[in-house]
């Protein structure tokens, strides 16, 4: 009962109510010390929210928030001393933070892991020295004093009014960031975190996404810095220390790094919890340190994670797939619905050769794949099948030869550009990101070509809603084709292997692919699942797709293919229709290891029509 009633309330109502309550707090006669604390909490929340984007969502160890905070503070302070109004100073501060965030994020595009972490840590260390280098403007180590009071429209704000401004700014920042994260952009960060290779295979430009994440996470930090200056009318390098950086990480972990609202709770708990303890300062380092150790080891999703688990009881939008649901859709014959034509193109691989450090993985291989047909590649381990697939999808560059699709050259293009030209693939082990439903996972194939601007996403403009609708529709159609439509709202990463395989195939279909590459799609499946997969593949081909299947399961390959290529030690051993290949003695000896009995082979070919 409660479930449907709560479901009716839009998700932004609770934060709005909390925000209004907070704004009203000073006017209930609250102690000014409390008002100051809450102001600081609002400001730090903006810092942590930014951190959650790069650290929590995108999984990048970038800790430059403190540096952007300092930059925003000094920019605002310096401008206000020169007579600029608070609002215009804040705007410049935010822009400056974005620009510097971009520039300092550039190394992060090539670095990962600790390299990125250390360079971003370093930025905090630079703050006192940079202020000393520019002593004239920044006041050096003694800091910037006599910063004028904050004004809006000529009117000086008192402490309570300034507090209200900070709360409103925080609510707006959180709302905008939330809109951004619960969208295709947020999901592409999740895809990136799960696997950069998956991201490029979906056509996403990983560098562009990372750069955007760096910039977006810097903006709230810059804004926070500008506001903190107006709070105390004074800043010095001592306000921007590694301890502050540690506090931000701790708040992120406590509130839940993969959450936007969690930032507020994390900061609030830490600030309020430690504020009243007068001896805390001495113990702060030890306390934060131990908290991080415990938090890193035990908490996986912080307060927000706990809250979400509770919420799931009230509004079960994402639930675990029931056994019944999965077995049901396996038992029923998959309905044949009207199938939208799939725009397959002609694939031509000519004389493709690839050497790796003295190892000849592929030698002068030429194959053709035609729309409406299933073309298969078979061969023993080490025969070069996967290398060929990776060459076609652009993950490797050929040593010689080329790959063309619909007459245009593919080889030599970056993998995400190859994907944008309509090449879709599945992986030997299905790669589905955490925290996404099946529908979202399948729709992610359309992010690259159906891109919506950040502004439209953040403000939920019509363009965003239109794009979401069309992606969802295309995703549903693809799911219908593979017989998984019922699972659209299930958690994608938690499904059984066979089902994840089919979801991956649906994802490959969702982007109207000109070429579909299936990498050992049948491996690990049982007889029944293999048959279903085979019928899905046939249906896709009949709808006009160009399917290139790399497979070990010879029986399945024969039942489904129009043309088979056999590879051995990097060379093409044989090619032809299934019955030709089965009768081919050389293939039998090399790949199957036995001379087959002709009668039996004939019987096999007939049995699998």
């Amino acid at each position, binding site marked *: 009962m409660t479930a449907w009633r709560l479901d009716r309330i839009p998700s932004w109502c609770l934060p709005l109510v909390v925000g209004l309550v907070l704004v009203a707090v000073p006017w209930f006669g609250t102690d000014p010390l409390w008002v100051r604390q809450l102001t600081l909490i609002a400001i730090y929340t903006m810092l942590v929210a930014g951190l959650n984007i790069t650290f929590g969502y995108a999984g990048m160890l970038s800790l430059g928030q403190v540096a952007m905070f300092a930059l925003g503070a000094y920019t605002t302070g310096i401008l206000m001393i020169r007579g600029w109004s608070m609002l215009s100073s804040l705007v410049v501060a935010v822009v400056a933070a974005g620009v510097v965030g971009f520039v300092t994020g550039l190394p992060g595009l090539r670095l990962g892991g*600790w390299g990125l972490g250390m*360079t971003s*840590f370093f930025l905090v260390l630079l703050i006192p020295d940079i202020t000393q280098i520019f002593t004239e403007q920044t006041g050096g180590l003694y800091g910037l004093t006599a910063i004028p009071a904050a004004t809006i429209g000529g009117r000086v704000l008192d402490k309570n009014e300034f507090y209200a401004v900070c709360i409103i700014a925080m609510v707006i920042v959180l709302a905008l960031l939330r809109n951004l994260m619960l969208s295709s952009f947020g999901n592409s960060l999740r895809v990136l975190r799960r696997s950069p290779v998956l991201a490029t295979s979906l056509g996403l430009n990983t560098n562009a996404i990372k750069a955007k994440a760096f910039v977006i996470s810097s903006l709230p930090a810059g804004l926070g810095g500008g506001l903190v200056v107006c709070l105390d009318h004074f800043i010095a390098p001592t306000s921007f220390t590694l301890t502050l950086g540690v506090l931000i990480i701790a708040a992120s972990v406590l509130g839940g*790094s993969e959450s936007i609202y969690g930032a507020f709770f994390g900061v609030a708990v830490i600030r309020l919890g430690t504020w009243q303890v007068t001896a805390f300062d001495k113990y*702060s*380092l*030890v306390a934060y340190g131990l908290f*991080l150790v415990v938090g890193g080891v035990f908490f996986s999703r912080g307060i927000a994670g706990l809250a979400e688990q509770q919420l799931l009881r009230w509004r079960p939008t994402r639930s675990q797939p029931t056994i019944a649901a999965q077995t049901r859709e396996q038992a029923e014959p998959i309905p044949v619905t009207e199938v939208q034509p799939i725009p397959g193109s002609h694939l031509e691989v000519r004389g493709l050769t690839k050497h790796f450090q003295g190892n000849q993985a592929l030698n002068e291989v030429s194959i053709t794949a035609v729309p409406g047909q299933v073309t298969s590649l078979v061969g023993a381990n080490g025969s070069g099948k996967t290398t060929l697939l990776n060459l076609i999808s652009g993950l490797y560059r050929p040593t010689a030869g080329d790959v063309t699709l619909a007459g245009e050259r593919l080889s030599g293009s970056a993998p995400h550009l190859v994907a944008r030209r309509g090449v879709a693939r599945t992986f030997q082990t299905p790669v589905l990101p955490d925290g996404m439903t099946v529908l979202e996972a399948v729709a992610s194939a359309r992010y690259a070509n159906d891109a919506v601007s950040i502004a439209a996403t953040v403000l939920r403009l019509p363009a965003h809603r239109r794009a979401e609708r069309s992606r969802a529709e295309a995703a549903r159609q693809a799911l219908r084709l593979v017989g998984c439509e019922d699972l659209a709202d299930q958690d994608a990463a938690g499904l059984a292997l066979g089902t994840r395989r089919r979801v991956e195939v649906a994802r490959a279909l969702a982007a109207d692919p000109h070429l579909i590459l299936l990498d050992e799609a049948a491996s690990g499946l049982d007889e029944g699942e293999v048959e279903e997969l085979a019928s899905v593949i046939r249906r896709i081909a009949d709808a006009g797709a160009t399917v290139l299947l790399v497979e070990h399961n010879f029986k399945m390959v024969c039942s489904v293919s129009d043309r088979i290529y056999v590879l051995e030690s990097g060379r093409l051993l044989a090619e032809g229709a299934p019955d030709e290949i089965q009768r081919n003695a050389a293939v039998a000896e090399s790949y199957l290891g036995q001379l087959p009995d002709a009668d039996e082979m004939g019987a096999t070919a007939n049995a699998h029509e």
Partner: protein
Amino acid sequence: MLTLWLGICTGCVYVLVATGFNMVFVASGTFNFAQPQFLVLGTFLAYATVFSFGLSPWVALPFGLLVGAAIGVAEERLVIRPVRSKGINAELVTMVGWSVAMQGVMLLIWKENPLAVKGLAPDDVFTLLGVRVTAAQLVLVGVTLVLAVGLHLWSHLTMLGIASLATSEDREVAMLRGINVPRLGIGAFALAGGLLCAMGPIAGPTTFAVYSFGDTVVLYAFLAMAIGGFGHNIGAIIGGLGLGIFQAEISLHWGDKWISVLTFALLLSVLLLRPQGLFGERNERVV
């Protein structure tokens, strides 16, 4: 020339920490962010040995070795092993936490003011090639070079050393061949922690005992390691000494405030232009 010598002395501190990094990195595949804190702790223990307990500074050697090894093992068990499978974010969080906690404890016990550390050498001063050189500095440079070169030789000439190098390449096959990989990891944490802590009386006279020293050293020693190549001690010597001299020259010509900025530029250049350093390897990407 004095600048060169001072640069070499500072550089030796980086080399010491970098060898600690390398030891742990090779044997357990992790970058131990908290490593420099062991050196800082060692300097405090050296101070305490002489000024709190009234003992000879030589006692600080075994004292530091034991305390450092114990804390190193504790770190491996409490902070590294539990998050091995959780990915690099969790690793960063717990290691930063441990590092900060160690700093916090040192701050609690010894407060903020830098403390002078009495070293092993007498207070003699020499003049070598026209440069004023203290005995303590000679000890620092000597011990550092011996230690770093010694560890390099150990890892290439002894069975245990070669086994560690092999483990850093392929943990699974190392286990298949009979190498107790988990124990190797613990051993590395213990040895690196113990050695760095024992270096207290040796580095202390130059660095003093300051709880915040680790903040800069972690970054500079990381750069030394990056220049030399992760896991290569000879490279770490070149990287550390080179960085020390680089920073000394900057201080002389432009002033201290430019050190961190230019070092940062150097870090970026190395990580972007030659991330494998002098002796490291480029990883071939395999899908």
